């Protein structure tokens, strides 16, 4: 069951990802991306990260992708003709590179799993505190104690992003 779910989600996410790349209309890519994010959220859930899975759906699939769709609607990219490509040689370069990258990454992953028993763990802030369910509370505790500084930094980050978006998009008087 677990495996079926996993393979289902994995296949969905990879297929959706491929659709993102190869769809001929932007809107399809966006929709496929939402599907992909959903599938990944499922994988998160399987990996005992229920809170993250929820955030994934809400923030990513929800907020961010809506923003994307909004922009797509606004700009109407379908009207533009992308048929003449000045960089025809790019795919020829990318395919072997991508293949090599994928090969190495997967190979490394397998190599890693062989020695995975040998724990390198130096223990983060919460070594051994991961429960099967309901880790939201400890997550929150972590976030507001040990990870207080990063959390505060994100406020600056968002502030500057907002400020930036505002400056960039306002129409000059």
């Amino acid at each position, binding site marked *: 069951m677990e495996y079926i779910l*996993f393979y289902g989600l994995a296949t969905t996410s990879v297929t959706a990802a491929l659709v993102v*790349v190869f769809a001929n209309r*932007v809107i399809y890519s966006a929709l496929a991306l939402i599907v992909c994010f959903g599938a990944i959220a499922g994988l998160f859930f399987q990996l005992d*990260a229920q809170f993250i899975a929820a955030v994934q759906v809400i923030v990513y699939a929800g907020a961010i992708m809506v923003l*994307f769709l909004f922009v797509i609607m606004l700009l109407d990219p379908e009207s533009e003709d992308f048929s003449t490509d000045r960089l025809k040689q790019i795919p020829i370069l990318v395919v072997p590179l*991508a293949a090599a990258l994928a090969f190495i*990454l997967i190979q490394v*992953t397998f190599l890693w799993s062989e020695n995975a028993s040998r724990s390198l763990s130096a223990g983060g802030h919460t070594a051994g*505190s991961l429960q099967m369910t309901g880790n939201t509370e400890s997550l929150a505790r972590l976030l507001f104690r040990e990870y207080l500084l990063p959390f505060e930094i994100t406020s600056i*980050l968002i502030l500057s992003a907002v400020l930036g978006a505002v400056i960039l998009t306002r129409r000059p008087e």
Partner: protein
Amino acid sequence: MIPSTHYLVVAALLFVIGVSGVILRRNVITMFMCIELMLNAVNLTFITFSRFLNQLDGQIFVLFVMTVAAAEAAVGLALIVILSRRADTLDVDQADTMKW
């Protein structure tokens, strides 16, 4: 329990697809979406390791990545909007005034 390797392989595939997508697509929005795909692959990796290591730090990291992704989306889309407004295109290859 499904071994971590499986998840990592899925993440790797997603990452590679994302990377390839950035390069293969000319539409700025699609490129950006592919970048989001890369970030998600990273997130999946983090979560997998987090479970493997049996600790929460990875999940925290993912939260921050998501925040960053959101912030980037705000700025990135704003930039895309003004590019389209000024250059009247979403084709990244049109943005080649400066070269050599």
